[in-house]
C-alpha cells in the first residue's frame, strides 16, 4: 500500500464520527455482512458516513492493512477501529455498542 493511500484512509477515518467501510451503499449493500452492519447502525439511530470499497480498489486493499483486519465491513468510531460485522452484532446485542457511542459522545436515538 502506498503512503498516500494510508494517509487518505487516515483522513477518512478522522473526518467522520462514525464511519463504515462497506461493500455497496447503505441503501444498496452488496454483501450480507455489510448489510448487517448497516442494519445495526440504523437500529441504533446513529448518523454515519460510509465508504464503498467496491468503488475504490486502493482503499479496498489499503483498509485491510490500515486496520490489520482482513475483511469488510469495518466500523470506526471517532477514529478508533471497533471491528467487523460479527463484533458489531455481539456488541449490539450486549448493549456495548450503545455504550461505546455514549462514551464517545456520539448522538444516537435508540
Amino acid at each position, binding site marked *: 500500500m502506498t503512503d498516500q493511500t494510508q494517509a487518505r484512509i487516515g483522513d477518512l477515518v478522522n473526518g467522520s464520527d462514525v464511519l463504515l467501510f462497506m461493500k455497496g451503499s447503505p441503501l444498496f449493500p452488496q454483501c*450480507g*455482512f455489510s448489510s448487517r452492519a448497516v442494519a445495526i447502525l440504523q437500529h441504533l439511530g446513529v448518523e454515519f458516513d460510509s465508504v464503498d470499497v467496491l468503488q475504490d480498489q486502493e482503499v479496498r486493499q489499503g483498509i485491510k492493512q490500515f486496520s*490489520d*483486519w*482482513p*475483511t469488510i465491513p469495518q466500523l470506526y468510531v471517532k477514529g478508533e477501529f471497533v*471491528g467487523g460485522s*460479527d*463484533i458489531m452484532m455481539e*456488541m449490539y446485542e450486549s448493549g456495548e455498542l450503545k455504550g461505546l457511542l455514549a462514551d464517545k459522545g456520539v448522538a444516537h436515538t435508540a
Partner: protein
Amino acid sequence: MPMAAEDIETLIREGIPDATVEITDLAGDGDHYAARVTAESFRGKSRLQQQRAVYAALGERMGGVLHALQLTTAVPQE
C-alpha cells in the same frame, strides 16, 4: 475455489492449539461458513484480539478463498 469445513478447522487449530472449533456450513454450498472458536488462551483478550488470532491462523485465505466466515469467539465457561 471454496474451502472445506475440515480445512478451516485444521488451520484454526494449528494456529490456536487449545481451540475448540465448531464450523457450520450456513448455505450448504461449501462457501458460507460460521465458525465458533472457544479457547482458554483467549481469556483476558478483547474481541478484536481474539478474532485477530483466528484471522492470523487463517492467513491469506481470509478475505480471499474464504470470503464469507461468520466468526464468534469465546473463552470456555467454568
